[in-house]
């Protein structure tokens, strides 16, 4: 287990390096410099600007310089917001995004896992079909449609919750969390149903039944741990998806989070911001994948041995 963690961590280093290199090259291959979109700038001003951001150096020198900065945790200054560093921008957007992702995950796990387990208890009956059909709707309803619809119904017509904002009025975090969480709730419902069905057909469950244990005890004490392994393994990739989904949800609900900053940076061609945020997100996602793998291995003794064997 420990060795596995170390090897996976070591593997993550080249991956992050690849991410940095690809992003850096892509951004620098972009046609037009970061300042070309602005009004006509006198050549000497442009020169001074380029010197300030080291753009006059050869590419490899810029790359090495940037790499050195990133290793020290410094993403450099923002192109579009003079005087502010990318680090500051990330730090100011991160809390809202992290909170949103946390609530969304909570929504997804609670609704998804209970629906899945509930459905698996009586497979191929109404108790199975209803939650699973709902899950299908959740999967086919993209967040950029669900969000506005929820706003339309609960924000505008019923006026139960604020239409947008984050932390300004009570209840304004509910709709964003539901919007972002629903799709994942649906996936988690399907995964936990599948996992539970497989576990419930195992011999040790039959033994537990034969002992006369109550169904609820069987589910909670014996089946859940194994049945939810696929869900745990999904959490890492789900987190990656949450980050992407936060782009849309933060745009719809005007949440001052990292996702909205990223989309704005994309429109503004704020190259250092794009670079910094991409690297930051990638690292975060790799770490989360690692954590969810670890938990899955910890939960499943069979994998625990395998994990030591290969990798």
């Amino acid at each position, binding site marked *: 287990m420990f060795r596995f963690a170390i090897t996976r961590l070591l593997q*993550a280093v*080249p*991956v992050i390096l*690849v*991410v940095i290199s690809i*992003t850096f090259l*892509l*951004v620098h*291959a*972009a*046609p037009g410099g970061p300042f070309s979109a602005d009004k006509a700038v006198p050549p000497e001003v442009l020169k001074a600007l380029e010197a300030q951001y080291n753009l006059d150096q050869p590419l490899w020198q810029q790359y090495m310089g940037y790499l050195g900065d990133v290793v020290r945790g410094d993403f450099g200054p923002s192109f579009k917001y003079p005087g502010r560093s990318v680090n500051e921008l990330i730090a100011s957007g991160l809390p809202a995004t992290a909170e949103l992702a946390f609530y969304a995950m909570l929504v997804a796990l609670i609704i998804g896992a209970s629906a899945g387990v509930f459905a698996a208890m009586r497979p191929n009956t109404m108790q199975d079909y209803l939650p699973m059909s709902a899950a*299908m*709707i959740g*999967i*086919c*309803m*993209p967040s*950029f*449609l669900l969000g*506005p*619809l929820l*706003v*339309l119904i609960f924000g*505008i017509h019923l006026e139960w919750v604020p239409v947008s904002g984050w932390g300004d009025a009570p209840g304004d975090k509910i709709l964003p969390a539901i919007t972002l969480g629903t799709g994942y709730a649906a*996936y988690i419902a*399907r*995964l936990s*149903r*599948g996992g539970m*069905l*497989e576990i419930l057909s195992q011999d040790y469950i039959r033994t537990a039944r034969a002992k006369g244990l109550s169904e609820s005890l069987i589910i909670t004490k014996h089946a859940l741990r194994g049945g939810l392994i*696929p869900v745990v393994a999904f959490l890492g990739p789900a987190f*990656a*998806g949450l*980050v*992407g989904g936060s*782009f*849309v949800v933060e*745009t*719809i609900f005007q949440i001052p989070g990292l996702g909205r900053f*990223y*989309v704005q940076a*994309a*429109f503004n*061609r704020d190259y250092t911001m*794009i670079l910094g*945020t*991409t690297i930051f*997100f*990638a690292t975060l*996602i*790799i770490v989360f*994948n690692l954590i969810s793998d670890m938990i899955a291995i910890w939960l499943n003794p069979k994998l625990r041995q395998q994990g030591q064997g290969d990798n």
Partner: protein
Amino acid sequence: MDASIEKIDEAGSSLWQDAWVKLRKNRLAICGLVVLLLLGLVSLLTPWIAPYGYEEQNLILGASPPSAEHWLGTDIFGRDMLTRIMYGGRVSLTVGLIATAVALMIGVLWGATAGFVGGRVDAVMMRLVDILYALPFMIFIVLLMVVFGRNIFLLFFAIGAVEWLTMARIVRGQVMTLRKQEFVEAAYSLGLSQWTIIRRHIIPNTLGPVIVYTTLTIPSVMLLEAFLSFLGLGIQPPQSSWGLLISYGVETMEEFPWLLIFPGLTLSITLFALNFLGDGLRDALDPRTSKD
């Protein structure tokens, strides 16, 4: 010799017949298939059957709710929504199909090569897939669209380039198991050439999972396109797609909710149909894999 070939053909067709019988029993999957066929037909015939011209405006009318003349209402420029959705669907479906084809091509070639060659080549190729899996793809697509400008061909490529990974894994796994099966060994010992074995045994047997996964890739590709268009990074006006129509609809949803609801409904129904058909195909063609 002739007789033996005939027998193989018979066995091959019975697999597909078997799948068809199973699929036909799955009512949801058949519904999905019918909806998709209808959608395809409507998209093909749009220029002839659309009730109004694509750029036909009626500024005096403005945004109007559904009526006898405009079944799905009109937008703020008085353009017929049904017509807009039909033309948008052509773009959305085209992106879905072409980007999936790109993903399919890369994925199958990559996976089949890795699985067939095996050994160190396989290890390196699949490690690369693992690495790419760990990357935040949404971000990379946004990055690509920003760097290279928003054009539709790049969109095909960018989406295809991120959706091939699972396909590669599936094909590789399939090829790996097939290679070790007795009937393939038997074919080798009969002295059949490698190419014949690939053509007659490997390809037909990988086809099932590939078809299933392709059906399931199309909806996720269409979602990605809609997502990007919604953010303003995908399809650009004057072209239109469902994602773009939804994003316009969101802007005016307070006054004119039908501008959001109809394109949204169309996209959702299409995704539904594709997912149901994909699930049905999976049950019919690939009984070993479970629902997820």
